[in-house]
């Protein structure tokens, strides 16, 4: 099912358009409060926006200009909201069976589907429990099972794995990937809100970056993450991004930083971004004399261990260094350093 959405919610400062091709999965990423959940609510019909037009599979479901409005239950759109909201008066199986039942399945059929979903998500032992007695992560898993059970034409998932423990996330991600693949083959569509780059990479075809209620970048997931145009997407992909104005050798930031780059650059004066991998950033205590063109003084803000390496965050860009280097250079928040990057490691592209 293809989706075409045009949405304006002035009170939430949301104003955007989104298109999803039939049989694909769109990822939505963006900072807290950007408007991701608002988009899902508008698609599901749990929010009635002042200005909107929604087409699913060519059928106009919502058009505020003509007053057309399709209520949620008639849309064939399923939503897993950010809060689990399991029906407190029903046990876990009945919660999961609720969707299939509502869409006309027999009781036995619905319970069979429910048990299948619960088994898939590793919750079989919770089947007879009441939601009030579940842990946070257990409730999140059951809510996911409930959202998957009716297998709607359009499936909306709002951070389905935020409450899950590290050990099950990879496994659930694999299962979700299978589910989405199965759905894709049937021409069904999904929209997934996530704060995790792996979810984006493994589960979505297209990725839209939402900031302040606007889509600031959208495209194939790989492209959006590898050539980020927003700080947010760069951070998500683990890349550094600097915004500024293109110059002949690279880019000028508003803070006065001069970034030297190689390769093609946009015309001078155009707004542009410079992208560089933290692994390409070296940390020195003194400014080195050698060839690298980019030497930026910086202050360490945080050091994050990553196995045998560590990510050193500074007020300019982050550097990926060995843990030995962290110890040798006594890197810790507040320490003044010089960041050194070869121009060949910096790519500048226009916006």
């Amino acid at each position, binding site marked *: 099912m293809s989706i075409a959405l045009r949405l304006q919610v002035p009170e939430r400062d949301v104003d955007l358009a989104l298109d999803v091709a039939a049989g694909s999965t769109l990822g939505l990423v963006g900072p807290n409060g950007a408007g991701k959940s608002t988009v899902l609510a508008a698609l599901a019909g749990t929010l009635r926006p002042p200005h909107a037009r929604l087409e699913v599979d060519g059928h106009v479901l919502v058009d505020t200009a003509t007053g057309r409005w399709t209520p*949620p*239950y008639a849309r064939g759109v399923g939503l897993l909201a950010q809060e689990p909201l399991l029906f407190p008066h029903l046990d876990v199986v009945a919660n999961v069976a609720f*969707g299939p039942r509502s869409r006309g399945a027999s009781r036995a059929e619905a319970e069979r589907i429910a048990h299948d979903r619960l088994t898939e998500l590793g919750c079989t032992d919770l089947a007879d429990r009441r939601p009030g007695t579940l842990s946070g992560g257990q409730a999140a898993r059951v809510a996911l099972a409930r959202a998957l059970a009716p297998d709607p034409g359009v499936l909306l998932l709002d951070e389905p794995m935020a409450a899950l423990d590290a050990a099950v996330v990879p496994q659930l991600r694999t299962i979700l990937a299978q589910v989405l693949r199965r759905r894709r083959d049937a021409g069904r569509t999904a929209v997934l809100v996530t704060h995790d780059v792996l979810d984006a990479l493994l589960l979505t075809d297209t990725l839209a970056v939402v900031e302040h209620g606007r889509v600031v970048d959208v495209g194939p997931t790989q492209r959006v993450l590898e050539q980020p145009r927003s700080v947010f997407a760069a951070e998500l992909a683990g890349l550094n991004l600097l915004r500024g104005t293109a110059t002949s050798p690279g880019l000028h930031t508003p803070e006065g930083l001069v970034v030297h780059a190689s390769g093609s650059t946009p015309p001078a004066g155009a707004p542009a971004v410079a992208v560089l991998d933290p692994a390409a950033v070296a940390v020195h205590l003194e400014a080195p004399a050698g060839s690298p063109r980019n030497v930026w003084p910086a202050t360490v803000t945080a050091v994050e261990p990553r196995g045998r390496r560590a990510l050193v965050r500074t007020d300019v860009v982050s550097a990926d260094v060995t843990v030995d280097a962290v110890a040798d250079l006594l890197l810790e928040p507040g320490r003044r350093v010089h960041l050194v990057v070869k121009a060949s490691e910096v790519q500048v592209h226009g916006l």
Partner: protein
Amino acid sequence: MQRGTGARRTQRTAGDLPRWVWLPAALGAALVVVPVVALLTRVDWSDLPALLTSESSRAALWLSLRTAAASTVLCVLLGVPMAFVLARTRFPGQALLRAFVLLPLVLPPVVGGIALLATFGRRGLLGSSLEVLGVQVAFSTTAVVLAQTFVALPFLVISLEGSLRTAGHRYETVAATLGARPSTVLRRVSLPLVLPGLVSGAVLAFARALGEFGATITFAGSLQGVTRTLPLEIYLQRETDPDAAVALSLLLVVVAVLVIVLVRGREGRS
């Protein structure tokens, strides 16, 4: 999983109540309980068995139970939809409608009875049409049920509307996104969720119907076995033997307490 070893159960702790709360609560309870106890001291216990088993008492009790049950059912059938409409929709004049629904509460019951006469009576707004159809409401048990429903309906509506508002409609929204049609949502989500409120409302309505006097005597009259409910019987007894009336009231009290404890007890356990 290992089962609890001792008798003690794990509890979630609520924010404890401040101690001083018990003082006004006890005062309030006393205000209600002491008069009932005082009433007990006035009962002539020796007359009681004869009085309670007299034919007129039994007829009145049986009629009261039947009519109060019937009007509770009517209140549920009409009041539940009303509460949903008031709590879940918005339309112009809704505030006025809500105020109107509360009217039977404030109208002296006798005036309520006059209003019902003006509606269903032979010369009433609808009564004349009903008479053409061969239906006579006045002086019938139907009239008793109507009178009780009229005074009891607001209790159910108000109490359920409050529960619906407090419960909010987040679960109803979730159900809709799972594809449930409005009727399904109502039956499988909204109603089960507000069941405690519905039960309280029904208990209130039943209690009010059971105690109803003024509207019944005005609208339905008072004929043993047909329209003379227990409260009417009590009033009549009072004219000749006030102590007997008090004793008879006790019967009403016992019935009410039984019904309430049974209903609430079952609810508490689930």
